[in-house]
């Protein structure tokens, strides 16, 4: 990434600085090729809005979410406490992340283990930047386009955040269309609960295909997601339906960054 500033907490500390917010990248955002593009789009927006942020870089480690949900409480707590130790050492106060699983775990499950932070999802954070006038959006290339939003379970049902991503999409002057199962009743993409890392049990269909069909029913040009895992699942679903030529799966942060030609 040229011209982008991505300072680490360690670098900031050496300069005696404390960033406004820690950007928790997450494993997917760090290693998955598709998710890295979401990470970069979000970083471009943070730079554009002059947000003072930092990442943990090589000091970041899995939050433990997939371990906990696979039933390994021990591994989860080991991960959690190690992360908390690092973040508390840097006196982290506020965290933003583009992964609803990291978001949920740090926000809800770290406090009991000694990690108390203000944690926001990147769609909420972007919304607040807009509200404060630090970031502006023009419709740009998405004006009038049909976009449907898939609610990530760990953002929506699990944490009651339904409106921030939708508000952002509406700011693009796009036509937001809802799937028949949305918000509280949104159907899972099939990745949660550590399913991402295993083959599904025997059945007659894959969950991501079922969900992609919900999305395609709305005749969208773009399926918007707010989670790197949902993004993978839906992208695979669109491919399974042979629709990759006319339907794109994009993160909300990518939509905004693209609208601004960033």
């Amino acid at each position: 990434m040229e011209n982008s500033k991505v300072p680490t907490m360690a670098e900031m500390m050496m300069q005696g600085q404390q960033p406004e917010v820690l950007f928790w990248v997450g494993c997917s955002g760090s290693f998955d090729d598709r998710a890295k593009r979401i990470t970069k789009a979000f970083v471009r927006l943070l730079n554009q809005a002059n947000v003072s942020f930092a990442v943990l870089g090589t000091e970041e480690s899995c939050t433990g979410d997939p371990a906990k949900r696979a039933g390994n409480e021990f591994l989860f707590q080991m991960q959690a406490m190690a992360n908390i130790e690092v973040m508390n050492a840097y006196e982290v106060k506020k965290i933003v992340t583009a992964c609803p699983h990291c978001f949920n775990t740090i926000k809800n499950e770290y406090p009991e283990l000694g990690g108390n932070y203000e944690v926001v999802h990147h769609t909420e954070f972007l919304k607040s930047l807009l509200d404060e006038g630090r970031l502006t959006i023009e419709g740009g290339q998405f004006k009038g386009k049909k976009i449907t939003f898939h609610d990530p379970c760990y953002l929506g049902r699990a944490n009651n955040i339904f409106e921030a991503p939708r508000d952002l999409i509406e700011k693009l002057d796009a036509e937001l269309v809802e799937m028949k199962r949305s918000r509280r009743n949104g159907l899972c993409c099939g990745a949660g609960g550590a399913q991402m890392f295993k083959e599904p049990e025997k059945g007659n269909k894959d969950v991501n295909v079922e969900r992609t069909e919900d999305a395609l029913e709305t005749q969208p040009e773009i399926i918007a997601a707010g989670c790197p895992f949902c993004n993978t699942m839906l992208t695979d679903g669109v491919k399974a339906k042979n629709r990759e030529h006319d339907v794109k799966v994009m993160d909300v942060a990518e939509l905004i960054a693209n609208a601004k030609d960033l």
Partner: protein
Amino acid sequence: MSYIDNILFVLLLAAGFGYFAFNVKKLVRNIKLGRDIDRSDNPGERWGNMALIALGQSKMVKRPIAGILHIIVYLGFIIINIELLEIIIDGIFGTHRLFGFMGGFYNFLIGSFEVLAVLVLVSVIAFLVRRNIIKLWRFVHSDLNGWPKSDANYILYFEIVLMTLFLIMNAADNSLQLRGYEGYHTAGAYPVSGLISPIFENMPGATVVAVERMAWWLHIIGILVFMNYLYYSKHLHILLAFPNTYFAYLKPKGKFRNNETVTREVKLMMDPNADPFAAQPADTGAAPEKFGAKDVQDLHWVQLMNAYTCTECGRCTSSCPANITGKKLSPRKIMMDTRDRLEEVGKNIDRNKGTFVDDGKTLLFDYITPEEIWACTTCNGCVEACPVNIDPLSIIMDLRQYLVMEQSAAPMELNNMMANVENNGAPWQYNQMDRLNWKDE
């Protein structure tokens, strides 16, 4: 004057309530077999939830047709039961329509009961049609094969019989009132049964009295039988929906329970000052705590109450991404299995004079298979869908925890994932030192 009727009635009442109390005691004992969990916080919010969700049926109407029909039956059940008070007093003291002295207000009450009774009849028939003729997916689902399917129909037949008896009783009574029969003073308004009473017009008075008495007795006997049927049926929800919504989880659904035993262990491991060779603390008289749940006694009491509360409506299963794509997991079955196993454990305790004797069976493996619990995406769809805030997901998670922490029996790919997290801090095999490489790509 003979008091046989009154005595018979009091005996019947005592037997009905006595047996019910006997079963409630067993129910409470079984629920208390679960582990302790503190749900005494935020009483205000809890009362509010109970008022809104149980009393106000707020989650029922998310599916409007079933929701509205259910509200009618529910209102009918509650309001018509005001009449029960009069029936009991009349039965004990040998009076007839004792509350008749309220005049216009009494007429209003009886009149509205009748209208409600008809609405209940219509709704119950609609429910029967949905189950047996339209065959809605969640009602013909394999979860319900056998007894559960019959149970659901028996409940509906029962309500038809009770409402019909109520209307026949009123119709005969009305006919007797109209002809000024001895003992049948004028009381009540009969907007519905008034349409039936002409049938009795040409019958001898004694016959109509016999019909009225028979309907009266069968109605109250029916109610007592129905009350005692609850314990053996999915219909317990009419009582348990209230405590169940009160004690439900209040935190964000994504926050899963923290295992504090593990926290103590991990803190000890990470404490540089801890002495690794220190002797175990001396208070280890108790058996070491098991991680997760293998059987019903390992679940907490709210999860066990959840199981008794479940009325098997299947909204959870019809929202479950695993089930609707053909996997074996069904959150409704998780609740039904938990209740069946709990009942089995309870009967075992009854047979063995108050202590549980190992029967070689457990909830996990004998009722719920690992294949079912590994299909869960932890999406909380089932928890959201439940009209009375039952939490099947927490049971699934406890069973998973047992499989992984006590038996190391995770699917192979998950073991690989966990090994990666442990070794390189990510679920995939990437070096932690490469975590920031994206910056320069």
